[in-house]
């Protein structure tokens, strides 16, 4: 089966046999089966390359994030390599034509230098977004722009609108408790998350073609601001509300996607997938909650240890001779271990809790796509229904040889076109989703693998550090007892 031509073939055959909604359903099922099969076929031989391709952006190490913008080529280089291999190996790749070997196409972005601007409620954080590329669509090899969080939201929403069916990489949460909004930790975590967000887009074979991405990475702040306010002013509610609205929408669709709606896909595999996603969110939320609590526990233990250390030192001051010294050394070590714990807590937050949270957000993004798919499916069915009625009407008119036949025929043709369009839209979503699902699983396996590795490494490092710190006390204590 020749994959690249397949979607077309599928949609053609599908639209040709669309007379009734019931038959369209069964038809759809067949098509989905085909798609699934296809994705399976795709998966098996290319597992390796896919895994490679959807490797997440490595969470930028603190060292990296602190380095000035000019010093990132190392990272972008490796990312470009990866993307290039993707281009070479993936048959299902983007429409972009294979390029001549010397110019390996790359697009790498870094989000750096968060700066607080404005005052009071108006205050916000701006980031320096640096794009490096050799793609001809871009103005030059390097472009630096200043962007704020709502610009990233704009990009996200635009992509969501134009790439239905693709799991748009999730954004970090909008809302933070006011108290923490400008805390260094929050800002750094958001910076990191935004960096991952934009790089995921830049490495996605379809999304990287987006005009919106190009706009986002290149236009001046003024233009960006106009675009953003135009978007939010004309078509949408303000960004905050939009976010809330979306949340509500996805929540409503949770309900809606249940059994109430009559027009609903009922393919068992799709049902299973939906069920999986919804359950997964709960499980992940629980794991993430515990991870966050673990971070807190590290901090609390650190705090207790340092308090304990201080108390022990004071107690040591009451003792004379070697014992007093032993006490104060124990106190000092306690404080040292406390610092290790605090440090590890931050590591844990950045490299274990945050990826888990990202995972949850990704699942939520899938849910949004599921909702879109539902909408597209309904539209398609409604149109098919209308066409059926029009057809009957047209037949009637033909029989009565009414003068309205011509008019009706035009209307019918238009509708037919619309319907075909709707079917195509839906089909695209279905196709993209099944592709995306594979990618999603691959990516999350890697993401989690990295997070687990970081977690285990961090815990081992911490435990070793603690063991070493305490061990160094032992000879002194031994000396005391003589």
């Amino acid at each position, binding site marked *: 089966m020749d994959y690249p031509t397949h979607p077309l073939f599928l949609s053609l055959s599908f639209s040709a046999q669309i007379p009734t909604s019931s038959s369209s359903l069964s038809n759809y099922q067949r098509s989905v089966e085909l798609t699934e099969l296809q994705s399976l076929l795709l998966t098996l031989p290319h597992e390796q390359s896919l895994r490679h391709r959807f490797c997440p952006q490595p969470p930028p190490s603190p060292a990296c994030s602190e380095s000035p913008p000019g010093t990132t080529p190392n990272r972008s280089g490796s990312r470009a390599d990866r993307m290039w291999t993707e281009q070479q190996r993936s048959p299902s790749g983007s429409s972009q034509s294979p390029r001549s070997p010397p110019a390996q196409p790359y697009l790498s972005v870094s989000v750096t230098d968060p700066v607080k601007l404005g005052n009071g409620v108006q205050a916000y954080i701006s980031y320096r977004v640096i794009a490096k590329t050799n793609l001809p669509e871009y103005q030059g090899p390097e472009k630096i722009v200043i962007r704020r969080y709502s610009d990233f939201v704009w990009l996200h929403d635009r992509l969501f609108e134009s790439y239905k069916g693709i799991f748009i990489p999730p954004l970090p949460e909008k809302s933070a408790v006011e108290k923490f909004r400008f805390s260094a930790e929050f800002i750094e975590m958001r910076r990191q998350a935004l960096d991952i967000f934009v790089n995921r887009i830049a490495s996605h074979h379809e999304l990287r073609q987006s005009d919106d991405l190009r706009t986002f990475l290149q236009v001046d702040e003024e233009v960006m601001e106009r675009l953003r306010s135009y978007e939010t002013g004309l078509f949408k509610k303000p960004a905050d509300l939009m976010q809330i609205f979306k949340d509500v929408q996805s929540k409503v669709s949770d309900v809606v996607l249940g059994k109430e709606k009559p027009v609903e896909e009922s393919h068992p595999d799709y049902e299973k997938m939906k069920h999986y996603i919804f359950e997964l969110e709960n*499980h992940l939320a629980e794991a993430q909650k*515990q991870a966050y609590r*673990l971070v807190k526990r590290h901090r609390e233990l650190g705090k*207790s240890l340092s308090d*304990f250390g201080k108390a*022990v030192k004071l107690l040591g001051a009451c003792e004379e001779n070697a014992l007093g010294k032993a006490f104060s050394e124990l106190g000092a070590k306690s404080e040292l271990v406390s610092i290790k714990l605090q440090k590890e807590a931050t590591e844990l937050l950045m490299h274990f809790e945050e990826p888990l949270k990202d995972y949850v957000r990704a699942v939520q993004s899938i849910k949004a796509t599921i909702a879109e798919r539902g909408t597209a499916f309904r539209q398609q069915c409604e149109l098919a229904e209308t066409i059926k009625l029009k057809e009957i009407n047209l037949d009637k008119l033909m029989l009565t040889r009414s003068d309205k036949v011509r008019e009706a025929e035009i209307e019918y043709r238009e509708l037919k076109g619309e319907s075909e369009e709707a079917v195509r839209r839906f089909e695209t979503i279905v196709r993209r989703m099944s592709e995306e699902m*594979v990618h999603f699983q691959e990516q999350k396996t890697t993401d989690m693998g990295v997070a687990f590795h970081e977690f*285990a490494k961090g815990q*081992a490092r911490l435990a070793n550090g603690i063991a070493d710190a305490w061990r160094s006390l032992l000879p002194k*204590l031994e000396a005391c007892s003589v």
Partner: protein
Amino acid sequence: MMGSENQGFEDARLYASKEEMESLVLGDPSRSSYANSDYRSAMSNSLPDSHHPLSPPILATPADSDPLLAPPPPPSSSYPELRNPSSHDSSSYIEPPSYADVIFSPFDGDSSSEINGVDSPSPSSDSPVSFSRSSSSGTEYIKITVSNPQKEQEVTNSIVPGGNTYVTYLVTTRTNIPEFGGPEFSVRRRFRDVVTLSDRLAESYRGFFIPPRPDKSVVESQVMQKQEFVEQRRVALEKYLRRLAAHPIIKKSDELRVFLQVQGKLPLPTSTDVASRMLDGAVKLPKQLLSESVVAPHEVVQPAKGGRDLLRLFKELKQSVANDWGGSKPPAVEEDKEFLEKKERMHDMEQQLSNASQQAESLVKAQQDMGETMGELGLAFIKLTKFENEEAVFNSQRSRAADMKNLATAAVKASRFYRELNLHTVKHLDTLHEYLGLMLAVHGAFSDRTSALLTVQTLLSELSSFKSRAEKLEAASSKIFGGDKSRIRKMEELRETIRVTEDAKNVAIREYERIKENNRTELERLDKERHADFLNMLKGFVVNQVGYAEKIANVWGKVAEETSAYARESS
């Protein structure tokens, strides 16, 4: 006979104000606070008259007679014959006193003179043996276990139906100390007996750091019957008795031996008997022979107590006020600079200990929480693993599930290690609590010393006032030649008083010196033992931390290795 007007009044006031305090009906703050302080001083006295042979033990209404809980008892006036005569007239129109009230009701010195139990010998202060608490001399040992709590019924009929049960514990001792005359024996004792033991010890071993006895819990009567309460108390009692047995002097005391060994009812007197404590040949003189202001020599070895000798208490109070104001220089002052320094140091140490033990507690809690959360994280991932395996469509899901399983298992293992670590930490840091508790004993020993000194001071100033009175009298009588009979009689009386007071003073000074010596040797012992115990604690704590940190590091190190493929891929 023993229900003197004075005591009756005392009792009535105590019970009445207790009543106010507990029922909070009549909220007269000054009165209830007075009652409170009275209650406290009574507690330190803690001389229950319930065991008086003449009073039916019923007065010790246990547990349920808490006025807040107990059903309104039948008016006690209808059972007057059951009441202890001493408290009869006072408390007949209010509710019967609770267990605690009775145990701690103030004691009238006069009443006890008739009930002489076992003589409590004075400790031999000259040869205090000093060995480490923890490693008590390889040769001698006493091992005490408290077990098998049993509910028992009070034998006499009660005015509070059903409320007269108490719990006894089996106290088993294993020892090789020859004085005990046997390697193993056990007796049944109740909490009240322990109170008696600790009271007797406090009297006989003034100046020693006597391990404090477990508190009576405030909610006692409500929870007394509960299983966990009984268990808690059992543990506390065992700890207490073991501490006593570890004390180099106390372990050899007759009081402890009697408590541990004598079958049946505890033969120790439940109230102080001054006559039984005659020291150094001081003769007990009938009170009426002395002018009422004179303290009998044998009594000076005891601190003045509330109900017993109000006058003496008043005098000593006056003396201490005088000392505080510094108006008149007391005839004898604490001049042991070294001791004062040590006292100061002990005070500091107590504060630091209390701080450290508090921090240790919160450390233990934080460690516990850490273990628990680690376990919960593991559990969350185990669930997730199961879920992914069930729902798996792609291989990537399965390999992820496998990774998760690794992590989950490690988290659960680490959690277990954290918990074990915590158990050990609790054990080690308990030394801090232990010593904090011991500070109470130190306080007790120091206040023994202070009160003994106060007695000496009071007697000295009294003596000097007697002497000046005698001089005046003599001067006056020398002017009137031949003198008159009454003056001569007065002189005689005064001389006698001076003689008695002189005796008392000497006894008091001896007692003070003895306590001083006890304090000194105990401080030395404490320093030595504390050094060893603290060092052990530190070592235990550190070794433990190292050991478990290594284990935890191992667990995670393995996982880190297993997942290292991801690290290479992402870097």
